[in-house]
């Protein structure tokens, strides 16, 4: 079982492609890997309870750890997060890199 960190910097309001990345996270998790999706920059815009946050909450229920960059959240005044999403510092990215996990950026 491998560990993956998938960083999503885009948001589904502006980019249709974000759901491909959420699906990739789910696919990796279903294959038995430990997967974290780290929302950063405008990627955190779907972390608020909103039309797109249900996808993220479902992802969390399916076993993907869903985190949102605390700096990006504060920058955008997002205080309330949808179910299954937790705020986290950017250190998480460096932790995963240092641990030798595969880290991808979208």
């Amino acid at each position, binding site marked *: 079982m*491998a560990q*993956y960190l998938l960083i999503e910097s885009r948001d589904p309001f502006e980019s249709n*492609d974000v759901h*491909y990345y959420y*699906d*990739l996270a789910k*696919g*990796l998790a*279903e*294959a038995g*890997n430990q997967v974290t999706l780290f929302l950063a920059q405008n990627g955190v815009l779907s972390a608020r309870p909103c039309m797109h946050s249900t996808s993220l909450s479902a992802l969390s229920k399916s076993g993907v750890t869903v985190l949102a960059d605390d700096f990006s959240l504060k920058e955008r005044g997002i205080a309330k997060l949808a179910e299954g999403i937790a705020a986290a510092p950017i250190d998480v990215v460096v932790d995963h890199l240092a641990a030798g996990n*595969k880290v*991808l*950026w*979208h």
Partner: protein
Amino acid sequence: MAKKTLNIVESAYRAVMEEQDDTILWLLAAMQGAGAEHTVVLRGNAVNYAVAGQGVPGLTVGEWKQTQAPKMDRDVVDLIENRKIPVYVITEDLADRGIDHSELVPGVQLLSRTDLPSLFGDYALVSHW
């Protein structure tokens, strides 16, 4: 032996006329020449790079004429045949864009979006471009 790297390329036709190359495919080819071991997956709009028969004559601006216009289909074939870089294309992304498999350059390998995660374990590194 070099670290096997899977490169998922989705950015397409960005600065291709200016650079006369896709800069990511160019970079990977250059690294391969230095001993890297790359594989490419074309997804999203980048699947269009595998469509045969594409390309325009060079840009003309006043008296300035471009003489080395890029041809992405030629570059994909070059990756496969000369650089020995395997190139996959995501079948669902082809279908979404109305691209028939018969339109593709020879040598590209078809891969379903659902099978992409299963490739990851075969590589030391996976990068998204």
